[in-house]
Every structure is written in C-alpha cells, then in structure tokens.
C-alpha cells in the first residue's frame, strides 16, 4: 500500500516538477512569475487531443513530440505578444506578471469559446494499465510519466550546463545586462527560454491529459507546480525539481492517511497551500533559493 502510494506520488510529483521547471526558468532570467504557463500546458494537452483523437489518429510518441513543439511555440508567441515590449521598456516585473494573468484568462476563454467546456479523454498508452507487485497495484502510466519526466529534465540540465546558449541562460539569471553587453542577443535567448519552458509544459499537459482529462481549466493544476517551485526556491532549477517531487509525494501520502474517522484526502489542497503559507513565513527563499545578496 505504501509502495503504491509512493509510486503515485513520484509520478504526480515528477509532472509537477516538469511544470515547476518552466516557472523557474522564466523566473530566473526575467524575475517574474509566468502565470500564463498553465494555459500553455492546457493548450499542449489540447494539441495532443487533436492529434490523437479528434482530427488525426496519431500514435502516442509522434503526438507527444508535436504537442511539446506546439506548446513551446505557443509559449514563444505569448512572450512576443505579451512580454517583449514590456521587457524592452524595462517595466517592473509586476507588470509582466499582470500581463501573464491576462494571457492565461484570455487563452482559457478562447478554449471555452471554440472547443467548448467538454471533458475529453486521451487514449491510454497501455491497454493493461496496472500490474501487481505482491499486494501493491502499480500503474504503468505512473511509472512511464515518472521515467519520461526524469529524462526530459535530465536533457534540460544537459542543455543548461553544456551548451553555449545554456551557459548564457545561467549567466543571464545572474546579470542579464552584462550578458547582453557580451554580444548575446537577449531576444533570442528569451525565445529559447520560452521554447524550453513551453515544451516541458506541453509534455506535462499530455501526461495530465492521459492520467485525468483534457478540459479548459486543467491548467489550474500549475498552481500546485508553482507551490513546488516556491518550496524549492523560485528561480532555482534543482529547487523546482525537488520541490515538485516533494509536493507530489507529500500530497499522495496525505491522501491515503486516515486519522480516526477523518480521511485527510479531503484536505489535500488545504495541506498544499498550508505548506506554501508556512514556507513563505519561515523561509521565503525556499529550500535552494538564492539568498538576497547585497551587491557592491
């Protein structure tokens, strides 16, 4: 039972991590919380639905890749339309955040107005989803989501650590003006940033669609991923990964806990947001967050 819960927790936690990494990437360089990320993830799931169910009958892997690409491109256009002019005018990050919220509301309502409010299912990857180890029933989809999230995040880490543009992204997270003065075109760098964040978000969207359903407000789940990113320390990549997985694990453990006759699963979201509040009070920089440094 506990084994099963841990697998479920790791699976949802790794999906949180996929989304949280997107928040952290953008935050690290541009210093604002990109609340349009949830809408991009939702659109990623809808692209998968169009590719696999409603328009084409694609198989899973090509549909996953195209959905990731599509979500990345959508994230890129969101940046071009909603953030780039603000960036060029050096607007305070609050303005960018408000613009992001506007984009989130707009995109969600475009979905309501066009595709409608229906819930759609994505076809399962495995015909027989569960298998048993002893008394535990394990979902193949959970294992699959965990493994692929880990691979995607590992690839991202390699890009950030061993490529030129990745090095520039890390440098820009410390001093983007200096990066620009060394000859890096910041617009291109930010475009790469949103492509990366968007495509990882698209992957998360497809997994959410398979695990649950595809519907216009499914992006709400990114609130949890955002909590994960804050737990780890906004702007820190390892922080987003650890925070996301930790939150997923804790949530699934809370969900199966029964105290007396009270099932704590009803209080799962109370628990998650409670953690957020406590953290912001006692350790606002998160587990891996940068300490606010006094710059000379």
């Amino acid at each position, binding site marked *: 039972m506990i084994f099963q819960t841990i697998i479920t927790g790791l699976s949802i936690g790794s999906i949180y991590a996929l989304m949280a990494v997107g928040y952290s990437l953008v935050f690290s360089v541009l210093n604002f919380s990109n609340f349009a990320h949830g809408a991009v993830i939702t659109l990623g799931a809808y692209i998968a639905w169009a590719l696999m169910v409603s328009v084409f009958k694609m198989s899973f892997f090509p549909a996953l890749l195209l959905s990731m690409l599509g979500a990345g491109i959508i994230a890129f256009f969101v940046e071009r339309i909603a953030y780039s002019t603000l960036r060029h005018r050096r607007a305070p990050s609050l303005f960018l955040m408000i613009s992001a919220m506007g984009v989130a509301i707009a995109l969600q309502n475009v979905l309501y107005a066009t595709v409608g409010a229906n819930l759609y299912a994505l076809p399962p990857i495995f015909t027989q989803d569960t298998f048993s180890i002893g008394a535990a029933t394990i979902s193949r989809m959970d294992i699959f989501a965990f493994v692929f999230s880990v691979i995607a995040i590992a690839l991202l880490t390699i890009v950030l650590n061993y490529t*030129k543009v990745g*090095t*520039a992204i*890390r*440098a820009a*997270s*410390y*001093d983007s*003006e*200096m*990066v*620009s*003065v*060394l*000859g*890096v*075109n910041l617009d291109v760098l930010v475009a790469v940033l949103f492509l990366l964040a968007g495509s990882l978000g698209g992957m998360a969207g497809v997994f959410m669609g398979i695990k649950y359903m595809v519907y216009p407000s499914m992006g709400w789940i990114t609130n949890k991923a955002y909590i994960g990113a804050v737990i780890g320390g906004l702007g820190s990549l390892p922080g987003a990964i650890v925070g996301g997985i930790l939150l997923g694990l804790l949530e699934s453990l809370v969900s199966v806990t029964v105290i007396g006759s009270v099932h704590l699963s009803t209080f799962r979201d109370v628990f998650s947001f409670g953690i957020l509040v406590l953290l912001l009070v006692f350790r606002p920089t998160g587990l891996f967050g940068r300490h606010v440094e006094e710059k*000379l």
Partner: protein
Amino acid sequence: MLLRVEDLNVYYGEAVHALRNVSFEVQEGEILSIIGANGAGKSTLMWTLIGQLKPRSGKITFRGEVMKPVPHAVVSAGMALVPERRRLFPNLTVRENLMMGAYLRGDRGAVQKDLEYIFSLFPILKERLNQYAGTLSGGQQQMVATARGLMSRPKLLLMDEPSLGLAPILVNQIFETIQEISRQGTTILLVEQNAKKSLAIAHRAYVLEVGCIVRTGTGQELLNDPAVQAAYLGVSQHKEVILEGKEPC
C-alpha cells in the same frame, strides 16, 4: 580613425543630462585615457559606446560604420567592454565566464589559441579555470573580467575603472597588463579615476567634467598641466588654479 564620437548627448530620464555634446576620437593602436571625477559621465560614456544606453543625439562611427545602439551588433563589429566592478558571473566557472566573452565566435580552434594568449597574460587563471568566479580574489576577478573582454578578439577594448578597489601592488600590475595588451595590438579606451597612472600610460587623453570634455592632449601634457594637477593629481601648490569652465559646454 578607429572610433569617432560626434556630439553625443545622453540623458537619464528628462532631468539628468549625463553627456553633453561629447566629441572625441580614438586612433588605431593607441591607449586613450579619459579621466574625470565621480559622476562625470565616464561609465555612461562606456555603456553608450557598447550600445546598451541609447543616446538622445550624436553619432558613433566605428571602423567606418555608424553604430546603432544594439550591443550584439557593436560587439560583433569589434568592441568589448570590461565594466566597472567587473560584473563577473559568480555562478559560472572561470572557463565559462571566459567562453561567455567568446559567445559570438564560431571558430573553436582560434578561441582555444586565444585562451593560451590569456594564460600568457594571466598565468594564474590556468589553475583557476574550473573554479567558480565568485570564489576568486578581487585581483583575480579583475583578470577574468579583462580576459573575458579580450575573448571576443576586440579591435577596441573599453576598460572602465579597472583599478577600482584593488591593492596598490595589483593596481601597478593591471596598468602593466594594459600596456602589454596594447603592445599586442588591441586599441584601448581607458576610463579611470586614478588619473596619475592612467595619464602616465596614455598616448592621448581627455578630461571629462560633468558630462563635458574640457581638456585634451597627450598623456604627458595633461600630467604637466597645472589645472589638471590641481583638480585630479592632488598637487597642493596649485590649489588656486581651477579648471576653467564651471559651465563647460
């Protein structure tokens, strides 16, 4: 003429007129010093030249081409900035910091050769390559910043206050390095508060005062100029002499 600046005017907002009709030239191969007190506009000038600050008016011509205020275009044209207070990336290793300086270059082999040139200037950096830049001492950080500027193989290296905050022995070293870089064929525009040392190594120099160029000459001429001595070199017997032009331009 390597660089020609004509009637440059830079504002911060509406109220602060940071550079007023600044005009000067840099010739190929020279060390040109611009001296001036705090707030004279020296750093503003550097960040305008590299394209990060947009001038209200004026023209910057570099190697025969008019420069637009776009940093990556200016850098690929052949300018590089070693900024005041170094501005290294402390979360990157020394090697990564240096490679950031070579960001626009695709020629890996030549970049590797330039690393060798860097090590000939600063042998200590070879041992520090895989260390995080934030862990270095101030003197070593200045070396990395200078090296990072050189990694783009600039025709013109803009150096903003390289001696700031360094111990006297390191200050002497950095000025020697500047001369060595110059001998290797890189033209240098040096902006300094340490007027004495920077005039001593300069071929030519300008004095910048509240946004205006008020004096020009060879380094030696300005060193011997009583007004410059009084204002910038702390020569006490000339205290009564003040640079003309409280309303300089």
